[in-house]
C-alpha cells in the first residue's frame, strides 16, 4: 500500500516538476524573442542606410491634388493676408481632413485663417469656417456662438442653418434642430438637403417610419442630385432602417451609399451594423486597411475580438497607445470610442462608465446612449443609466438595440 502510494507520489512529483519547467522554459523563450525582436524596443535610433525610407507622407501615390495643395500653400505663404486664398485653402484642408479622418488638416485650416482667427467679428466666410472647426473639436458652444453671429448679418446663409441643425441633433436637442432645418426647405434647389435634415432629426424624435417614407419618396426618381447629397440621404435611410430592425432594407441602402464613394462616417455606420448582425468577418474584410482612423480601428478590433483573429493583440495595443497619446494632449474628442474600448475590450466597466458619462454630457447620439447603458449594466450601476432612460422617453428615440438595453436596465433592482 505504502509502496504504491509512494510510487504515485514520485510520478506526480515528476509531472509537477516537468510542468514547472515547461512554464519557466516558455517564459524565458518568450523573453528572449521579445528582447531580440525590434518591435519591442522603441528607443531613438540612427538609421545606417541613406536610402532607407523612414516616413511615408499621407498622400496616395499619383494624387494630383498634392501638387495643388503645395502650390496653394506657397501662394498663401507669399500673401498670408489674402483672405480669398486663405478661405480657399482652409476649405480644401477641411474637405481633406473630413475625407481622410485626419485632424492635422483641421489644424492647417485654422493656421490658414490665422490673421482673422482671434477677431471678435471676422468676415462671414471666416466665421463659418471657424464655427465648423469648433464643431470638429467638439466645442459646440463656441461653434453656435459663431453661427449666431453669422446668421445675424446673413440670415440666408443656408450652410450656417444646416451646421446649427447638425450640432443640435448631435446634442439631442431635436426641437431646436428641426427649427434650423426649416429654412433649407424654402429653397427648391436644396430641397433634398432640407428633406434629409428634417427626416434625420424627426427620425430620432418619435417618427422613424414616417421620416423614412418621406425621405425615400423624396429621393425616388431624382436624377438631378449630387452624389454627396444622395449618399447622405442613403446613409440616413440605412440608419433609420437599422434602428427599426429592417435589416435587409438597411443593408441595401448601406451598399448603395458605399457605391457612391468612400466616406469614413458611412464605413463606420456600416461596420457597426455588421457587428450588430454578428458578421465580424465582413467587418474585418471591410476595414482591414483602415487602421489610421481610431474609430474604424476600434470597430476592426471589436470584430477581431469576436473571431479571435491573429491581429487582435496588435490592434488592442495600438488603440491603447492612441488613447494614451490623446490623453497626453488633453484631447477629449474620443471619449465615446474610448468608453467602448474600455468596456468591450479592456473589460473595465467602471472606468468605461465614467468615460461614457463624460461623453454623454457633450453628445447624445444613439451610440452615445448605447455605450452608457451597456457600461451601466456591466458596472451594475443602474442609477447611472437614469439620465439616458429619461432622454429616451422624452425624445421618443426608436432603436431596437436601445430598446433591448432599456428592458435589461428596467429588469434590474434599483
Amino acid at each position, binding site marked *: 500500500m*505504502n509502496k504504491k*502510494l*509512494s*510510487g504515485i*507520489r*514520485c510520478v*506526480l*512529483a*515528476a509531472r*509537477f*516538476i516537468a*510542468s*514547472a519547467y515547461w512554464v*519557466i522554459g516558455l*517564459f524565458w523563450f*518568450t*523573453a528572449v*524573442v*521579445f*528582447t531580440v*525582436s*525590434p*518591435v519591442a524596443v*522603441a*528607443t*531613438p535610433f*540612427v*538609421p545606417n*542606410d541613406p*536610402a*532607407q*525610407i*523612414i*516616413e*511615408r*507622407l*499621407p*498622400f496616395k501615390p499619383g494624387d494630383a491634388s*498634392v501638387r495643388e495643395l503645395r502650390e496653394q500653400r506657397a501662394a498663401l505663404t507669399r500673401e498670408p493676408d489674402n483672405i480669398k486664398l486663405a478661405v480657399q485653402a482652409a476649405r480644401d484642408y477641411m474637405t481633406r481632413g473630413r475625407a481622410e479622418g*485626419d*485632424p*492635422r488638416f*483641421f*489644424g*492647417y485650416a*485654422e*493656421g490658414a485663417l*490665422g490673421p482673422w*482667427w482671434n477677431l471678435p467679428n471676422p468676415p462671414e466666410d471666416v466665421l463659418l469656417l471657424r464655427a465648423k472647426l469648433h464643431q470638429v473639436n467638439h466645442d459646440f458652444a463656441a461653434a453656435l456662438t459663431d453661427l449666431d453671429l453669422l446668421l445675424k448679418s446673413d440670415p440666408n446663409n443656408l450652410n450656417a442653418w444646416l451646421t446649427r441643425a447638425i450640432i443640435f441633433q448631435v446634442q439631442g436637442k431635436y426641437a431646436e434642430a428641426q427649427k434650423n432645418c426649416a429654412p433649407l426647405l424654402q429653397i427648391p434647389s436644396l430641397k433634398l438637403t432640407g428633406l434629409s435634415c428634417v427626416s434625420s432629426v424627426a427620425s430620432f424624435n418619435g417618427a422613424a417610419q414616417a421620416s423614412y417614407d418621406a425621405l425615400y419618396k423624396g429621393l425616388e426618381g431624382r436624377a438631378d442630385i449630387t452624389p454627396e447629397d444622395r449618399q447622405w440621404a442613403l446613409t440616413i435611410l440605412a440608419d433609420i432602417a437599422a434602428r427599426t430592425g429592417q435589416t435587409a432594407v438597411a443593408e441595401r441602402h448601406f451598399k448603395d451609399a458605399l457605391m457612391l464613394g468612400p466616406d469614413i462616417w458611412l464605413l463606420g455606420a456600416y461596420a457597426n451594423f455588421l457587428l450588430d448582425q454578428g458578421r465580424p468577418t465582413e467587418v474585418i474584410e471591410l476595414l482591414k486597411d483602415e487602421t*489610421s482612423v*481610431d474609430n474604424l480601428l476600434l470597430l476592426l478590433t471589436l470584430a477581431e475580438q469576436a473571431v479571435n483573429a491573429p491581429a487582435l*493583440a496588435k490592434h*488592442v495595443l*495600438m488603440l491603447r497607445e*492612441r488613447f494614451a*497619446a*490623446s490623453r*497626453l*494632449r*488633453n484631447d477629449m474628442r474620443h471619449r465615446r470610442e474610448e468608453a467602448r474600448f474600455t468596456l468591450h475590450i479592456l473589460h473595465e466597466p467602471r472606468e468605461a462608465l465614467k468615460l461614457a458619462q463624460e461623453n454623454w454630457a457633450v453628445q447624445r447620439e444613439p451610440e452615445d446612449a448605447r455605450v452608457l447603458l451597456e457600461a451601466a449594466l456591466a458596472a451594475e450601476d443602474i442609477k447611472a443609466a437614469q439620465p439616458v432612460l429619461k432622454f429616451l422617453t422624452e425624445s421618443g428615440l426608436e432603436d431596437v438595440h436601445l430598446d433591448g438595453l432599456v428592458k435589461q436596465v428596467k429588469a434590474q433592482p434599483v
Partner: protein
Amino acid sequence: MRRLFLLLLTLCLFAAPAYAHKPSDSYLYLSVAKDGTIQGQWDVALRDLDYAIGIDENNDNAITWGELVKRQAAIAAYILPKLNITAGAAICTSTVIDHLVDNHTDGAYEVLRFVAHCPKEPSVLELDYRLFADLDPQHRGLLRLDYQGQTRTAIFGPNQAKQRFELGILTPWRQFRDFAREGIWHIWIGFDHILFLIALLLPSVLLRKRAGDIPCRPLEVGTFTASPALNIPRRELQTGQWEAVAAFRPAFWNVLKIVTAFTLAHSITLSLAALEVINLPSRLVESTIAASIVIGALNNIYPLVINRLWVVAFLFGLVHGFGFASVLVDLGLPQGSLLLALVGFNVGVEIGQLAIVAVFLPLAFGLRRSWLYQRIVLVPGSVVIALVALTWMLERIFNFKVLPF
C-alpha cells in the same frame, strides 16, 4: 525551431506599421541638473517638419534617411529658436548634440538632442514654446520636466505658450519614502502577490506525515527530515496527514526561508526589468503570476514539494518581480535617482510583505492544532485560492474579465 524564429523576426521587421491620424504633438523632455545644465530631447514629427520647411526633396511622398540628414541643420535652426528657456532673468542658450529618429503612434519623428546652459542653478524655469503656432494652432508641445527626481508635465499651445516652473528641492529621503509608500500600496492592493505568499505559507505551521518513504531520488524535491526541535518520533507519523508543529521556531524558520527566497528572487528581476536589462510582455508576466498561485495552492492539496517550498518561492518570485517592475515603470522612474527609487520601492514591498506575515504567522500558529485550520483553512482554502488564480490566469491569457478584483 530556428526557422520559426527567423520567420518571427522577419515578420517583426517587415510588418508595415499603420500610423494613426492624430493632431500634431511634439514630445519635449528636459532634465535640469544642479549646475544649471539642461539636457533636452525634442521629438518632432517628420510630417510636420516637412509641412513647415520641406524635407521630401524629390517630392515622392517618402522621406529617406538621406533626405533627412541633408535637412538636419535646417531643422535645428527652425525649431530651436521656437523654444526659449529662461532661468530667472537669464537666457539659457541651446546647442545641438545629436540627431536621431524615433517612431510614435502617428509616424516617424526627428529626435533632436540638445543641451542648454543657464548661467547659474535655476530656481525658476520659464519656457516659451512657439513651434508651429502659425502653421497649425492645434499643435501641442507635451513637456516632461525632470528635476532632482521629480517629474512634471505640461501642455504647450498657442493659448498656453509661456509657462513657469518652480524648481523646488526634493530631498532624497522624501523621494525614498514616496517610492516606499508606493511599494507598500502595491502589495496591499495586489491580491495576487498576497495570495501567492499565503498559499506557500499555509503549510508552514504544519508537518506532513510521510511514512515508509520509498526513495524516488532523481525526482525528489522535498524529503522529510525531522527537525531537531521536534520530539515526534518519525515512525508515529501516518501517511497523508498533517500534524501541527510543536514549537514556534520551526514554523518561524519555514516562513523566514520562504519569504527570504521570494524577496531575493523578485528583487533580482525587479532590478533587471526596471533598469531595462530585460523586458517582458506584461500579459505573459501576469498570466505566469496567476499560474504560480495555482501551482502553490495545488501543492497544499497534493503536496509534492514540502521542505523546499523556498525553492518554489524563489523560482516564481522571479516572475513576480517583473510584475512589480511594471508598476514601478508606470510610476515614472526619475532618471537622476533611479537606484534610490528602486531601493525605496523594494523596501516598501518588503514592509508590505512583512506586515502580511506578521498578521499571518501568529494567527496560523495559534490555530494550527485546531480542526478549523487543518480541515477548513488548509485544503478547502487552497482549493478556493487555486480556483481564483486559475480564473485570473484564464482572464489574463485570453483577455477577458469575470472577477471584480
